[in-house]
């Protein structure tokens, strides 16, 4: 029962109000007691929509499947999708709308860390449970929030030594997106490289809208590293891979990445640009488990063969909805406090991404981590590491002892 809230009539009404426009003459959405109101807030348009679209698909799929199987606690889920249009202020506005007007029992969503931080305070204030599904820099410590994605320490602890061994090199040159995720990831890379006898000789940061990498490639050529570690993010950064190949560097220095593929870069670059890049996430659509193969079949049957490929964020959105449903069934209610307590029992869900288990102390999850090689637009999984704990967040956050904590810690990486 996916519902499109159509309020064009309201828009006309409000338009007539002109100056007196912010009106409380709002039509109450028909929140009848026999359904469970649930909200999903993502970017379906604007620059970030490449991340948002597969996530929205997966939330929709999970809800439809639950409803088809009789709903949660015998009630259907009434899901409303909000499109924040890649605009941070709309996240704040929709979070309040979902919590106070729609009276959602749970909110799924948020893509960039900034969008999560735009919603988190409002959802906490209005006592609405919140799931965040994208991989991020770690450190969120808030009893009302569950972070489903992988954090740098979870993937990089195994990934960094693997890459050094795989490419048989020690000198790493890191290129990172210049925001919190990139900065923190770069530190973890340096830490794990040093611990394994390697060295990060240089780290360069690029704001998300930089698309000219000419001078950088010249600098890399001067530095002669063994391995390039790319933490580049977003559409503009995609041109790095293209310019790298154009400069004839592809076969000279191998590349690994912690971010290649979050926005389905493997589909957007050509095989000669991406073949051989090594990546690590908590989910790949190339995972050959029966759960995943079956999930992909259902996904493409529902959204068509041309649907956006499933990313880690998308798979974790699917896990998030199912974990919440499981917790509600266990608690026997959708009341926030009871559901949180149920989740804190260390609930787990086995799905396309393998097994994810809620870690009660951090409200993050213990998950399976995979390493894969990109080849011809697909992932070949090379290695998997089961049940990696969120060690980075655990170092700063313990919600079992301090349930009133409410902040995002900046994790101090000791190198």
């Amino acid at each position: 029962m996916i519902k499109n809230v159509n309020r064009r009539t309201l828009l006309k009404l409000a338009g007539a109000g002109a100056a007196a426009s912010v009106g409380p003459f709002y039509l109450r959405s028909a929140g009848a007691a026999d359904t469970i109101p649930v909200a999903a807030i993502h970017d379906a348009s604007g620059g970030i929509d490449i991340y948002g679209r597969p996530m929205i698909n997966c939330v929709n799929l999970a809800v439809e499947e639950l409803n088809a199987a009789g709903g949660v606690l015998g009630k259907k889920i009434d899901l409303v999708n909000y499109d924040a249009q890649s605009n941070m202020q709309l996240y704040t506005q929709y979070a309040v709308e979902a919590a106070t007007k729609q009276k959602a029992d749970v909110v799924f969503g948020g893509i960039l860390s900034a969008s999560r931080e735009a919603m988190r305070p409002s959802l906490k204030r209005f006592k609405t449970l919140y799931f965040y599904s994208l991989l991020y820099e770690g450190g969120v410590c808030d009893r009302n929030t569950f972070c489903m994605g992988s954090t740098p320490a979870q993937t990089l602890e195994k990934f960094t030594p693997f890459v050094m061994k795989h490419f048989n090199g020690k000198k790493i040159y890191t290129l990172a997106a210049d925001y919190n995720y990139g900065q923190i990831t770069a530190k973890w890379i340096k830490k794990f490289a040093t611990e394994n006898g390697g060295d990060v000789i240089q780290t360069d940061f690029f704001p998300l809208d930089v698309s000219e990498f000419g001078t950088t490639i010249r600098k890399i050529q001067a530095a002669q590293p063994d391995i390039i570690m790319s933490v580049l993010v977003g559409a503009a950064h995609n041109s790095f891979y293209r310019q790298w190949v154009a400069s004839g560097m592809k076969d000279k220095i191998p590349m690994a990445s912690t971010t290649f593929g979050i926005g389905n870069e493997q589909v957007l670059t050509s095989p000669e640009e991406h073949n051989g890049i090594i990546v690590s996430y908590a989910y790949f659509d190339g995972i050959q488990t029966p759960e995943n193969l079956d999930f992909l079949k259902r996904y493409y049957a529902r959204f068509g063969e041309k649907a956006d490929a499933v990313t880690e964020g998308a798979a974790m959105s699917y896990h998030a909805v199912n974990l919440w449903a499981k917790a509600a069934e266990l608690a026997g209610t959708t009341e926030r406090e009871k559901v949180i307590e149920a989740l804190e029992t260390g609930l787990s869900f086995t799905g396309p991404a393998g097994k994810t288990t809620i870690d009660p102390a951090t409200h993050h999850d213990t998950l399976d981590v995979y390493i894969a090689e990109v080849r011809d637009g697909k992932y070949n999984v090379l290695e998997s590491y089961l049940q990696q704990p969120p060690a980075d967040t655990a170092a700063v956050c313990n919600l079992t002892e301090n349930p009133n904590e409410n902040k995002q810690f900046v994790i101090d990486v000791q190198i």
Partner: protein
Amino acid sequence: MTLRSILGYLAVALAALYALVVVPAAGDMTTMINGTVYASYGVLVLSLALIWGYAGILSFGQAAFFGIGGYVYAVAALNLGDTTLSAFIAVLAATGFAALLGYFMFWGRLSDVYLGVVTLTVSLILYRFMNQTAGDEWTIGVAPLGGFNGIPSTPILTVPGDPDTMLEPEQIYMLAILALLASYLLCKFLLATRFGRIIVGIRENESRVELLGYDSRYYKLAIFSLAGGIAGVGGVLFANCVFVSPNMFNLQTNGQIIIWVIVGGLGTLAGPVIGCFLMLMLATELGTLGQGAAASWADPNLIMGVILTAFVLVLRKGLLPMSLAAFDRMVSGRSRSGELAVPVEKSVAAE
């Protein structure tokens, strides 16, 4: 006072009454949060309506002062703890920055499109700079600038003199509406003074005003700095309902403000604010049409673009002047023009 201006004040008073009494009484949180965001932008658009509509200064980078207001507030509040003082510092900083930039431009005799380029460039410089401050080295006192993510932990305003009692969202809402009202009345008052008349004179014919013995540079500097301060107030409000991030400075933000002025009506004060509220409501509604809709026919860029082009080409006067003209025709049976006329654009051909 003409009948029309009496009715105008009455309309503003009614709108204020509605926003300050009816809305809070209804207690709908969503309306109030939306109202706070809209009002903070409303203050910003008012500052452009003032300098573009009345002084003929088209600042393409008015958001620079909005962003500076927000950032200075966030940094000062994190460091000082006293948010009331920080808000004052922030508005002063925005005013001061506008004064510096104004001195740079007006004493360089920059005008028209060149002035637009310089203001836009300054805003983009701030955007680029703030965007690359995610590293640990970019920390002012205890406040990390945060780069692309901005400063999510921006402190909320507290009750003056009682730094431990944060204002509730309802109170921030009231404050934002009051600030919008106060800015509007300040502009209105200013334009009625001798100073305001000289400003309008400069817009109409700068050399004639100079020949009358006024040094137009000082007047432009004064009004430009004041507008910078007003935009700064908007920035502080925005920091209190969302949080500060480099997007406050970007091309889209700068562009939106100009669209609002055009839609509402250049050469009026209330018009652009109405334009701002309507366009923001439209954006908010677009996102709740449901998944799929926004990505197909209702692409926000497409809608904004069509609206802007249509207003420039067809509905050139903007909503408020058009409805006022319609009102006049209704009342007196003939159309009037004059006080609300759109200033004639000067071509900058370098003949």
